[in-house]
């Protein structure tokens, strides 16, 4: 790899042994993917994936301590994924005991480390850091060192920033040393599409289902999607960005997509159109039948598939302000239709602390509370990722949560029916 004098000096230890190791790590990582140079991180803030003080990850906290001790903290302030605990979320005595005393026993310790390393503020815990209410929204063309697959795919695709699908720890190393290896989605060539996806559905496709189908088909490649602008329009407004947030998270978790282009909608597709296509692109046509087929093929990993759901999670990734408002209307209407006063399944809507703060200022907050729905800043994935919660019959419309846990996926309409009416299993 060709290094600048400054980068070489860091590697040689001019700024200390620890920073030299950080540089060495990023260089070796880049060399695996053929990177020939290191480029400066230009985004204002970083975003880290590791938000949890999980007892099992002791070696990570030891490494963070090395960075803190040597003074090698992040050059950018950063947001981080959602907290794994929130007392507002229903949990039984045993779950609470295990969460607090065993699994996440190092939460306070790790949050203290994050503060020392450069956390934006004490509430900067969310996977949707790019929401206006949170304040970590990169500019088009910014080079990032983010992890968190749903945030990376959003930053690349909707905002036009440039970031690889980095792993935890690699994320902070980029902002500690200020450089990342230049490869993959940072390059023009790496941002070219190798798949054309033709949308031929008869109605607006469910975001989480469409993302899942595309992710499973293209895996880590870049899709160029044609025909979705018919349903989403050509403007990146609140509703469209919310759709793309959920769609992207599904492409990234059901596959490993880090960037997608949507014709006439996402910035690079608007700018460059079909010149973004590589030679020899493959084609995948998605119609109603294909989406139905994908949905029907999801394995049901509940011990008893006929169990009555004990919990419903909405908001993986975290919901937007508009989404919270829209769902308040939907839940109210659903309850009115079924003649019930409150939701019949304990239901949690999750969103960023900043988004929830804004939501509380609206009259929707009291209305949603009256329906029995709970709001929380928790990470549903972290709540589910243990044997006790794993045995619970939990439902969700998040395809990411379905993929990583035992939660069962339903479409938005089916979720609404289940939580307001019940009966459907």
């Amino acid at each position, binding site marked *: 790899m060709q290094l600048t004098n400054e980068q070489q000096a860091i590697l040689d230890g001019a700024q200390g042994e620890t920073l030299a190791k950080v540089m060495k790590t990023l260089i070796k990582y880049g060399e695996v*993917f053929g990177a020939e140079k290191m480029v400066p991180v230009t985004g204002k803030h970083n975003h880290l994936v590791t938000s949890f003080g999980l007892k099992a990850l002791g*070696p990570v906290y030891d490494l963070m301590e090395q960075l803190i001790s040597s003074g090698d903290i992040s050059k950018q302030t950063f947001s981080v994924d959602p907290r794994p605990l929130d007392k507002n979320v229903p949990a039984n005595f045993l779950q609470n005991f295990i969460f607090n005393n065993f699994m996440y026993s190092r939460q306070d310790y790790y949050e203290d480390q994050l503060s020392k390393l450069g956390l934006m503020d004490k509430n900067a815990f969310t996977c949707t850091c790019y929401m206006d209410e949170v304040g970590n929204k990169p500019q088009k063309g910014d080079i990032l060192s983010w992890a968190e697959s749903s945030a990376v795919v959003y930053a690349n695709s909707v905002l036009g920033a440039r970031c690889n699908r980095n792993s935890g720890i690699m994320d902070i190393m980029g902002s500690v040393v200020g450089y990342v290896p230049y490869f*993959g989605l940072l390059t023009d060539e790496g941002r070219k599409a190798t798949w054309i996806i033709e949308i031929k559905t008869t109605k607006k496709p469910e975001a989480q289902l469409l993302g899942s189908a595309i992710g499973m088909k293209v895996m880590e490649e870049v899709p160029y999607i044609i025909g979705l602008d018919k349903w989403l329009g050509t403007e990146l407004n609140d509703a469209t960005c919310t759709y793309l947030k959920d769609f992207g998270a599904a492409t990234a978790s059901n596959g490993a997509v880090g960037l997608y282009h949507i014709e006439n909608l996402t910035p690079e597709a608007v700018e460059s159109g079909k010149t973004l296509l590589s030679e020899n692109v493959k084609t995948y046509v998605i119609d109603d039948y294909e989406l139905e087929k994908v949905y029907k093929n999801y394995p049901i990993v509940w011990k008893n598939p006929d169990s009555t759901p004990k919990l419903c999670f909405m908001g993986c990734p975290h919901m937007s302000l508009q989404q919270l408002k829209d769902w308040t209307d939907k839940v109210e209407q659903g309850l009115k239709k079924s003649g019930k006063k409150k939701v019949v399944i304990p239901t949690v809507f999750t969103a960023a602390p900043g988004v929830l703060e804004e939501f509380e200022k609206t009259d929707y907050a009291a209305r949603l509370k009256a329906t029995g729905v709970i709001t929380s800043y928790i990470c549903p994935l972290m709540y589910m990722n243990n044997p006790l919660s794993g045995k619970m019959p939990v439902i969700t419309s998040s395809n990411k949560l379905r993929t990583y846990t035992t939660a069962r996926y339903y479409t938005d309409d089916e979720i609404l029916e289940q939580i307001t009416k019940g009966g459907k299993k």
Partner: protein
Amino acid sequence: MREFKGRVIASGTVTAEALVSYGGLNTLASFQKALQFGDKTATCGDQNNKDLYGKQMAGKALCLPQTIGSTTGGLVLYCACSMNRQPACMLFSKPIDSLAAAGAVLADVWLDNIQMPVIDSLGDDFLQYVKDGMKVSVKEDGTVIVD
């Protein structure tokens, strides 16, 4: 016996029993339980991985196409190495993905006395040929011999 040649990501020599995942390995789902509950044999906890679920991964020649799942994957692999619960080696049929590469590089640079050879690009033939329990030897230059 067949010989395969791949690219060296982390060098080393080792001989171990093969453990094969024909689909992608979800690192977080596979290792979390073992790291959390002190299981030194690193029993795979990923219910969605029919090839590996319930099998011991520590000390095995883990053969796989790529890793998948959460971007915590690299740090989970790093932790497995740090706690000495890592596979004897990781042998990828495809080019390595960014999460597994991160784990391999982190372990290589930041941990002393940990050896986990990592070879990628061994080809689809490799994964079609190798089966659980076969003896696998890895050489310094990326040669993998399957008995």
